[in-house]
């Protein structure tokens, strides 16, 4: 079963995402409410995936993704946002992430689709 860490500042969203992903066969091994604790949790838990909000209260998701890529074996980073891809343009594809999913489309299937994308 794939392990995943959810980094988002909204506890209600984290709970909903956890339920959805667990129903889809992911194992949610941790949650973090901001970028700094997200980085710590990733270091400690070594998840296969990190579901990462772009609009975090302390560090922007793009920067967290970059930091995750340089500290040890990098996890698959899936960026997500309340906004859609039009708000970020090329930054979504330039960085160290597997891909981007608008928050309402979060599901195990959507994450797996990014991995299997050619």
């Amino acid at each position, binding site marked *: 079963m794939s392990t995943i860490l959810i980094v988002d500042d*909204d506890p*209600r*969203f984290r709970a*909903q*995402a956890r*339920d*959805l992903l667990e*129903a889809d066969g992911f194992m949610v091994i941790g949650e973090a409410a901001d970028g700094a604790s997200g980085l710590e949790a990733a270091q400690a838990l070594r998840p296969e995936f990190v579901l990462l909000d772009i*609009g975090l209260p302390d560090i922007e998701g793009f920067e967290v993704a970059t930091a995750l890529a340089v500290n040890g074996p990098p996890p698959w980073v899936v960026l997500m946002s*309340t*906004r*859609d891809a*039009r*708000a*970020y*343009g*090329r*930054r979504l594809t330039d960085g160290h992430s597997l891909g981007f999913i608008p*928050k*309402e489309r*979060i*599901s195990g299937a959507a994450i797996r689709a990014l991995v299997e994308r050619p």
Partner: protein
Amino acid sequence: VIDLALPVLVQNAALLLAVAVIFDVVSSRVTIDRARIEQAMSGLLLGVIGVSIMLSPWHFASGIFFDTRTVLLVIAGLFFGPIPTAITLGMMIAFRLTQPGAASVTGIAGMILAAGIGLLWRHRRRLLEDMSFLQLLMFGLGAHVLILGQTTLLMFLTLPQAVASAAVAGLWLPLLTVYPVATALLGVLLVVRLRARQLTDANARLQAEVETQLMEVRASRARIVEAGDLERRRVERDLHDGAQQRLISLSLELRLARSKLDEAGDHEVRQSLDRAAEEAQAALVELRDLALGIHPLILTESGLGEAVESLAARTPIDVSVDVSPGRYPSAVEGAAYFVISEALANVTKYASATKAVVRVRGLADRIAIEVEDDGIGGADPRSGSGLRGLADRLAALDGTISVASPIGRGTKISAVIPTIQPTPPPVPTLWAPAIPDATMEA
């Protein structure tokens, strides 16, 4: 000898007026921006005039001569104030002392009295520019009655009685006719000049005021645009933090409910939940479109180039983008973005074009924007409110927009926006003129 006094003194008065007119013409072309220096210059020039009229007097006897110096001095006192008058008086007394004679004390006392009367009247009367010819004439008459009285008294005290009475006999008529008229004429000249100068000053003040106001209006216009931009950003953020977030939560909740229902399997409830999820999704899409139209986050985050590329990617026809890199003030980027966005929207809606080109050139102090298509042309910039609104927005930044749209040959929209916003210039200092009220307060 007595018969000669009147014509000679008329000539002397005419000389005074002629020199004064020349002086006036010359000095009105010269502006000096330091009040003290100007006052000194006025004093010197008046002194030169005084000496020049003292060079062609009525010679009554050796060491006794008369001229219109008192006319000049009362007018100097009245119109030029203490400093120029003191300088003039000093020069004229010095000149008189180089030509000693029996009447030098009387002459010098007459000069001092004339200057004193002028200054005293200046002190009492504030609105010199309102003085009429008649008022000036009465002033001249009054002054010369006093001067005649003093001169008569001093001549009888310092000269042999026969000489004194002969001099007074020759002097009294011109002093009470020619001199007041000359005083009034010289005064009128200066009243006119004073009015002209006040008009010039008022004009300069008005112009400076208008310029200041214009700068203020431009600055406030720019501030309004800036405030509008801030407000748009705030609304976008509020939508993101509020309604969008709630709709996402609703979507996820509906999907969770749907997945739990799979096991129980009531078909109708499942269908209803699917429809609800679709509705929530549609609302979210609309809300995002709205937020993007209000303020595109990509513009503030990544700049004009990427924002325009993202805009081009959403436009249903082929759009090539050529934007020179660089960041500009947010109001400028915002205006540029909305010009391009509106132009591309019009291309899609009306132009029947197959492709469009967006070019943005960053120059030293402005950016130049062009949006060109290969459509049917014939666009009328006056018909759409969109372009007019943009023109207003650009004007607030001192930018311009123009549309060229010949029928059958495509449409080209060009806009220029200054990237350096104007700062108000320092307030100009107006020089304080020597003639009007400034010296009277001292």
